[in-house]
């Protein structure tokens, strides 16, 4: 089933997502990885209620492009900070690789293929730095996406696509 997702998300919308579903995300999503997670778990610089976080950090933007290449990074590296961020309202995380359903309890984990970063950059229509500019490529970004493709890897019931 193909579903459209748009942040901010409600619990009701999350419940509709079943493991294996293919979704297309539209609207604004946050981009953060290791160092930004460490900081956000302590004190969130923006309202995270209903938010979607994409685990990534893009390559520098070349001229005439909206953004550089931007694929997912390994999700398990954010595990230590994920429950705290879910408490702060994060509803969906997007990354790559196997993950323990316990870690993402109360949220939905989506995967996108790793290493197809040039292709994924084509779904992004705007980008801005929200916080931690000093982290350079690891800064917290907000990007606007159209038809950003992902697969439900762990749903709200804790069912996982990974064996």
């Amino acid at each position, binding site marked *: 089933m193909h579903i459209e997702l748009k942040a901010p998300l409600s619990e009701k919308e999350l419940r509709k997502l079943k493991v294996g579903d293919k979704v297309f995300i539209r609207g604004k999503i946050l981009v953060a990885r290791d*160092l930004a997670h460490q900081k956000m778990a302590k004190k969130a610089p923006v309202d995270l209620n209903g938010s979607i976080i994409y685990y*990534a*950090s*893009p*390559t*520098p*933007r*070349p001229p005439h*492009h909206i953004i*550089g*290449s*931007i*694929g997912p*990074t*390994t999700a*398990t590296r954010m595990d230590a900070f994920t429950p705290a961020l879910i408490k702060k309202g994060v509803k969906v995380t997007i990354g*790559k*690789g*196997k993950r323990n359903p316990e870690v993402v309890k109360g949220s939905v984990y989506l*995967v996108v*293929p*790793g*290493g*197809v*970063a*040039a*292709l994924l*950059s*084509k779904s992004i229509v705007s980008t801005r730095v929200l916080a931690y500019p000093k*982290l*350079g*490529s*690891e800064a917290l970004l907000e990007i606007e996406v159209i038809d950003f493709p992902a*697969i439900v*890897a762990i749903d709200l019931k804790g069912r996982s*696509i*990974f*064996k």
Partner: protein
Amino acid sequence: MRNIPAQKITQAIKTLCIQANTELTGDVEQTLKKALKAETSSTGREILEQILENAKIAKREKLPLCQDCGLVFVFIEIGEEVRISGGSLTKAINDGVKQGYKEGFLRKSTTSDPLTRENPGTNLPAIIHTEIVPGNKLEITVMTKGGGAENCSAIKMFKPTSSQKEIETFIIETVKNNGANGCPPLIVGVGIGGSFDQAPLLAKKSLLRKIGSKSKMEKELLAKINKLGIGPMGLGGRTTALAVHIKKAPCHISSLPVAINIECHAHRVKSTTI
């Protein structure tokens, strides 16, 4: 003696860094196309198609294949009759990396200190492996390798009496436990023998050759790995690895080190001769 200006090396390294990051090598592309034909999972096929499409976009628009443009590994064979003029080899290489990563809009992923985690934004230093060989040429190979796949690697010191089967189990278990996070389909580099430091280097060097399993052991391991069902990006399917490469070296009578270096499908290796 043959004089090679350091500047020429800088230029070559810069070009190789940009090419490696934006152009998928032909052998990987061919192997992916073959895998696409053999893949039975529809999600698996979809992902393999996306990987091939990504390579087209990256080449056409000179965008990096992967946002993780990696650490830079430089393997350089230096002919005994070569003399480098106008600067040091190390500086020439690092200047090339710095220029390539700046001009190619590549992500800088190298921290200056492993504990304080500062990123000076140069992607330096390159990890350089030199070898002195007969002749008057420089053979330069640049490999850029992402952190996700590198993190899935492993080493184990086996007993000299350990069986080949035990080694194979270690290799398969490593892929089984970590493979989904290393961006499969993988290339599994294996180093057998040498010492504690040499085995991982053998594993890494095994990744430099043309993609394809050749020996009986490599072919058997590939078949077993592809029966694990991990599939492209770990979402199921028969394409978990594109190849298993093994490189061996003599070792001590007491030891049998085995190292596994996991490589992702965005395999970025380019070479040139000066």
